[in-house]
């Protein structure tokens, strides 16, 4: 089983709240791999918006992305790109 992990920083100034979290989960759900996102001592399912929101990842916080599965590399690649993207929003 392929295993990929990477540390990423949340660039969105308001952090990973409702709408950015929804986008992240939408992207994560496209992959076959199991995706885990952890911050400090907490790890959540990357395909669960409630889990991702519970992380309360503020701007600048560091997340560990982990993927297990056939498409793990691509999953981590694309999710990291999304998190690094500093999208504008309310």
């Amino acid at each position, binding site marked *: 089983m392929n295993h990929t992990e990477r540390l990423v920083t949340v660039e969105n100034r308001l952090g990973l*709240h409702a709408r950015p979290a*929804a986008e992240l989960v939408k992207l994560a759900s496209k992959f076959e791999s199991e995706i885990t996102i952890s911050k400090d001592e907490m790890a959540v*399912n990357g395909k669960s918006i*409630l889990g991702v*929101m519970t992380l309360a990842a503020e701007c600048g916080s560091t997340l560990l992305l982990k993927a297990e599965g056939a498409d793990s590399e691509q999953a981590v690649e694309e999710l990291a790109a999304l998190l690094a993207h500093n999208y504008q929003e309310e």
Partner: protein
Amino acid sequence: MNHERLIKGIAVSPGIAVGPVYVMRTELPEITHRVISRDEVDAEADRLYRAVGDVRQELESLMKHTEARAGIEEAKIFNAQIAMLEDQEFLRAVESLVRDNLLTAERAFEFEALELRETWGQSSSATLQQRVTDLVGIQTRVLHRLLGQSLDDVLHEAGDRPAIVLARDLTPGLTVQLEQGSVIGLASEYGARTAHAAILARSMGIPCVMGLVGGIDRIRSGETALLDGTQGTVLIDPTDLEVADAYEREGLRLQLRRELESILGQPAVTRDGTAVVLRANVDLPEEVEAAAEHGAEGVGLFRTEFLVVGRTELPQEDEQAEFFERIGRRFAPYPVVIRSYDLGGDKFPAAFRAAPESNPFLGWRAIRVCLDEPDILRTQIRAMLRARASSDVRLMLPLISQVEELIRTREMMVLAAEELEREGVAFGPDLPLGVMIETPAAAMMVEELAGYSDFLSVGTNDLTQYTLAVDRGNARLADRFSPLHPAVVRLLKRVVDCAVCRGRDVSVCGEMASEPLSILLLLGLGYRVLSSSPGALPLVRWLVRQVDLAAAQRAAVAAMEASTTREVMDVLAQTIAERVDLNLLVAGRLSVR
């Protein structure tokens, strides 16, 4: 006014509504404990997913309505709501409680829902705490469905005739659903300007007040109320006179808004032809566009604390350089004045958090931190020097009280430039250095400070606070805090005279620069550059255009001779009243807040 009838809250969506109040109770329904038998399990799981499907349809139809009424961006709030509703991990957990513990669907759902609400509610993140409202909104819908009710039944009563709806908490779904009925105003006990429901109310133009603490206990359904979404108040059982007053205020606010719109794009020039430069104060990157749209001729105060807040370490030089350059270019050919970190108190990255101080306003903060931890300042200086290669950025130092602070910074600038030169990194060597005049010490030493700097900028909030020894955050002292105190007026005069004499640029970047009476005074004293928050720029521009400079100068002379704050205010108010309806300005203060 009778204070028992007046309830104060937070103004989240402007406008006036008068009518009967409907107190809406959409709390999470009570769920009784009941177990099911093993052969009911599949049917119970089906029931769960059917309820979720029904709520999804409700939310989708609300989303469509929101798109039409509020806009596509606003409607995206519902995408996140639907994702929260259909969270597979959550639903699987509920389903396994049904299957393994033989709970009813509603009991299992409530069990999981409660745990999540508690986790979010206890979070140290304020944003996540606020989102509990959204969560409750979705969970209430699902539970109502599971109990065989629809939220529509609850809302039906509210929608019957025009009413002000008062709820414990306004969820986004509820807000949109109510809007489809005949709601004329919205009020809630919880919530804040940034709540999703608040954003929706503003886009749909429904007057709304949140944070009405104890509102539900004090107002009964059917009572008439006056909701003022501009001031953030609800008045129970208003008299005809009070209603008329509210509409008059609202009329003035709209009139002022029309006036401000009518001069959009016109220069800030006094009636007698003196040009005034208007710059913006920018706290957060997303204010940059608002500043540019409102015609700011550059940024008079670019705060850099946002780079640090909420982070565990300080941002690197590259990140800062790129950022400064981008902002600098955005405002070209105008300057962007960047203030070095004004850190102190709670505004510290974890690594630098110092021991609590008994008097943080007089403590280790701002330039003092930057010079004691020179790496912090060196990084900012290098980033600004680099940005200076392609944009007109300028460095400004906060809370200066000693000439040495300026001399040491100059030395660091020279060293940083030499380093960059050696490293072969592109930079602009002539980075202008400015001083914020925020302490009486700086105002008294302004000649010497001007000698070592390229420009001066008066931070009137701190200058007032330090001169009067009045904490501006202390509500009990609120009426003692005034930048129009004669002591502050005299310091302001001293600073502008010295700057003019020395040929240094001088500006005002505190709240004074957006307060009508103060603007008159500042122009009269000789200030020609004002920097205000982006939202205040239209009002400042309009006001400058009403001012007769000769009259402002006469008023300033009188203000210099005044012995009380009251006298200063009176002379300024009299002068301004010759040109402007003072009632309009009162309305203006409400709309620019």
